[in-house]
């Protein structure tokens, strides 16, 4: 029962095969027995059981929607009214939000059951979930390896079948990279498609909430529920959301797939590039046409990203000052000392590194050379995509250059860690929808992710292609050993 997809549960719940309460209880027990993964920061059984029985009543009355009664995990970056929201940081260790994030609210309205809050890199800064105050999360495919990050807790939870679906956020790859490393389908919608209200900000112009699940079909159902304009978020897009579910079943023959030469260069592990090429042939067999495209400025994405994201973060995280909520140092001599001690104790090393970089690139004398220049590069990168999309409907490549790496391998070398997001960063800089789906395994049995980037606001096409691919492959059905 635990290994089913969202849609399978949905059918079973409405067919009274089992109740939401039974399913929820089973999932909570499973989470406890898999505690060594460290996928959760907080389990919330009371909330979950209450929501499950509410869902069961709706199901009983025949008023259930497709998501009613389905358990899920929220990344601990989404504010939840009854359960603490830590962002993986000591500074918010005991913070309980008085309100729900819009995304949380929407999924609650849809009848979903929150099991708890998933582990993550502190304030979503990281690619391995090793930067968490609550310790690293382990990859269910190999406990000595990272699940990716920053939404690594969400990814590990779904991969280990602790929940059929999880929410995540993606600022530079934080949904897609862990999805790739854990063998999941994960989508980051277009910037502005999903409200950021209540999603604790890392880099406001790049952050976007999304979904990780076992299938792209499940992703479509949950994305449908969380998308749409929110008057509380001035950057959310005020446009009708298309019917993602309806378009899943369309044939993909005639769709044009662009392959950027830059995404197939050196530095991609052989098994990864091989799996990607095989996946591309599958798409070709389904009738898609392949064209070569260019993204000439893609090498600038990482440096551009690592100026802009820290700049915004240095300002966004200024509110964690110990004055109103969260951690405050217990001893200090004056207000400046209070700030310094609170923030020194409250933030981990990667967050501190980025706050320093961010303050530096915004300071007088450096602003033009870094921030302004990075904004110009961002424009060039976005223009590259606009040009490329004149020739194709979707851009495809590997999500990551390698499969999951061992815990501890890159913690001392931030640049190596940053390079893990080399293919994912640019979609955030350009605000485009992108997803990762399972497309094979390396010789160590570690999953490989296929990356699909769509046109702005065209989540439907990448979901459609991903779904059609999954109808003809079974990579997404593999379960890590010990979790079946």
């Amino acid at each position, binding site marked *: 029962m635990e290994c089913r997809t969202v849609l399978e549960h949905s059918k079973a719940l409405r067919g009274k095969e089992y109740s939401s309460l039974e399913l929820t209880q089973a999932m909570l027990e499973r989470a406890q027995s898999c505690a060594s993964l460290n996928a959760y920061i907080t389990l919330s059984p009371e909330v979950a059981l209450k929501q499950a029985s509410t869902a069961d009543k709706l199901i009983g009355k025949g008023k259930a929607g497709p998501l009613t009664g389905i358990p899920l995990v929220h990344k601990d970056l*989404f*504010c939840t009214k009854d359960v603490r*929201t830590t*962002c993986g940081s000591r500074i*918010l260790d005991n*913070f309980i*939000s*008085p*309100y729900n*994030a819009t995304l949380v609210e929407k999924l609650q309205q849809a009848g979903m059951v929150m099991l708890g809050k998933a582990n993550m890199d502190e304030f979503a800064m990281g690619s391995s979930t090793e930067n968490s105050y609550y310790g690293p999360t382990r990859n269910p495919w190999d406990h000595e390896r990272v699940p990716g990050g920053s939404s690594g807790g969400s990814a590990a939870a779904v991969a280990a079948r602790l929940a059929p679906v999880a929410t995540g956020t993606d600022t530079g790859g934080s949904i897609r990279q862990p999805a790739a490393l854990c063998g999941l389908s994960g989508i980051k919608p277009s910037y502005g498609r999903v409200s*950021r*209200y*209540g*999603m*604790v*900000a890392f*880099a*406001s*112009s790049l952050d976007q909430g999304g979904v990780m699940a076992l299938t792209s079909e499940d992703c479509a159902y949950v994305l449908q529920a969380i998308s749409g304009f929110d*008057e*509380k*978020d*001035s*950057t959310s897009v005020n446009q009708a959301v298309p019917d993602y579910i309806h378009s899943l079943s369309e044939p993909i023959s005639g769709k044009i797939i662009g392959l950027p030469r830059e995404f197939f260069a050196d530095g991609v592990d052989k098994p990864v590039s091989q799996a990607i090429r095989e996946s591309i042939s599958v798409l070709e067999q389904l009738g898609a046409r392949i064209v070569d495209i260019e993204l000439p400025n893609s090498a600038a994405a990482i440096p551009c990203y690592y100026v802009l994201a820290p*700049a*915004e973060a*240095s*300002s966004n*995280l*200024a*509110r*964690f*000052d110990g*004055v*109103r*909520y969260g951690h405050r140092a217990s001893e200090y001599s004056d*207000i400046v000392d209070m*700030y310094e001690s609170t923030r020194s104790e409250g933030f981990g090393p990667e967050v501190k590194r980025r706050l320093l970089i961010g*303050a530096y690139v*915004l*300071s*007088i004398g450096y*602003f033009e050379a870094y*921030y302004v220049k990075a904004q110009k590069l961002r424009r060039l990168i976005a223009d590259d995509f606009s040009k490329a999309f004149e020739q194709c409907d979707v851009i495809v490549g590997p999500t990551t250059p390698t499969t999951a790496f061992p815990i501890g391998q890159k913690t001392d070398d931030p640049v190596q860690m940053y390079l893990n997001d080399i293919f994912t960063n640019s979609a955030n800089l350009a605000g485009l929808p992108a997803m990762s789906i399972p497309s094979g395994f390396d010789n160590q049995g570690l999953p490989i992710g296929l990356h699909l980037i769509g046109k702005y606001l065209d989540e439907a096409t990448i979901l459609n292609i991903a779904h059609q691919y999954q109808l003809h492959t079974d990579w997404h059905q593999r379960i890590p050993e010990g979790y079946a």
Partner: protein
Amino acid sequence: MQWEPVIGLEVHVQLMTNSKLFSGASIAYGAQANHQACPVSVALPGVLPVMNLEAARLAVCFGLAIGASVEKRSVFERKNYFYPDLPKGYQISQYKHPIVSGGSLTIETGGSDEKMIGITRAHLEEDAGKSLHENFHGMTGIDLNRAGTPLLEIVSEPDMRSADEAVAYLKKLHTLVRYFRISDGNMQEGSFRCDANVSIRPKGAEGFGTRTELKNINSFRFVEKAINFEIQRQIEILEDGGAIIQETRLYDSERNETRPMRSKEDAQDYRYFPDPDLPEMILDDEFIERVRASLPELPHHRKSRYEQAFSLSSSDAEKLLRDRDTADFFERVCARSKSDPKTIANWINGELAALLNERNIEIAGSPVDSDRFAALLDRIADKTLSGKMAKEVLAHLANDESDVDTIIESRGFKQITDSSEIERLVAEVLDANAPQAQQYREGNQKVFGYLMGQVMKATNGKADPGQVNRILRNLLE
């Protein structure tokens, strides 16, 4: 040496919106601490700002009122610094692209001389909260009710050359923002706050001297005193061969002096950058034109209309235009009353103003509305009431809601206009004061006033003094 002061003012005007600049929390004054601190005001994790369009409308209003250009594209930026009452660790303000730039205000500088003061820019920004240092046992209390309150910061050119000019500019600005209902201008509640940049230079010099910025000058009187003190301080330093340090100085009204607060060296790097949570503010022509069409008649147009159509003096017109409600009141009375506009203006600027002042209320809340006020003046015009009686009737009108005629009737305020009745009373007075009447007839003009007084007393003040005067003279001669 002759020194010339150079003064520029930065004024923070609190906008008359219902809610904060980026959230729905109320900005009403005087609420219990932190009772108007919503999640956005507290800067809880995850919250986002949403622009209050009414604040933009008021800023556009101001731009149009001072003949400035209203920028169709303006950008909110973050001004980053740590302070306990700045909840986000940054203030959202407009920096490189303000909503209003390049306007002016004309001030009167003694007599009929006028001077134009340039306004460099006006930009929208949010206010911080309040730090409370008393009653917290050595700690600091934070009240975030004010955090996020919409402000318009209005920056003048360094065009003023004396404290008097600075005060004239400030008063003009104060009148204008109240007139257009941009701000209530309440200085005690901090709705109209001023900082002054002051420097001096040898008279006739082209360049500017080193300036200091004066803070805590939140009344017209303090502005004047602080600037004058600062000018004198700077003159003394320069004449002693010293140099002015560029710094921010705090005005101490009790000692009437300014003292250093922070120097330029302490100036922070605010690390401004465009706020990624807020799209650029784009105003279309339609919006701007709608605001323009909704503007009331501009004060200087209205003033010349009063001078020409109503033959009012410049100073009478100016007084009526001290706020829009007074001018509106005046026009309503003019429309209803048979009295001439000059009399109406005098009564509004004189008796009514005194009454309202005494009770400390605005004209909008006047206990005597324009209808009853018009009726009162009509009773002067038709000679039912003397001026003196009318003042008493006004006092009664202010205390109850009866109409004018009921009060005149019930309190016996009717003026004696019957000549024979007055003649009878005059004759009685002359009989009783025969020696004085005799003195007058022998050429002592002074005694006439005494006799007038006796007659008025005999009429209980109900006769028209002009009429009494005529009859008394007739009977004496």
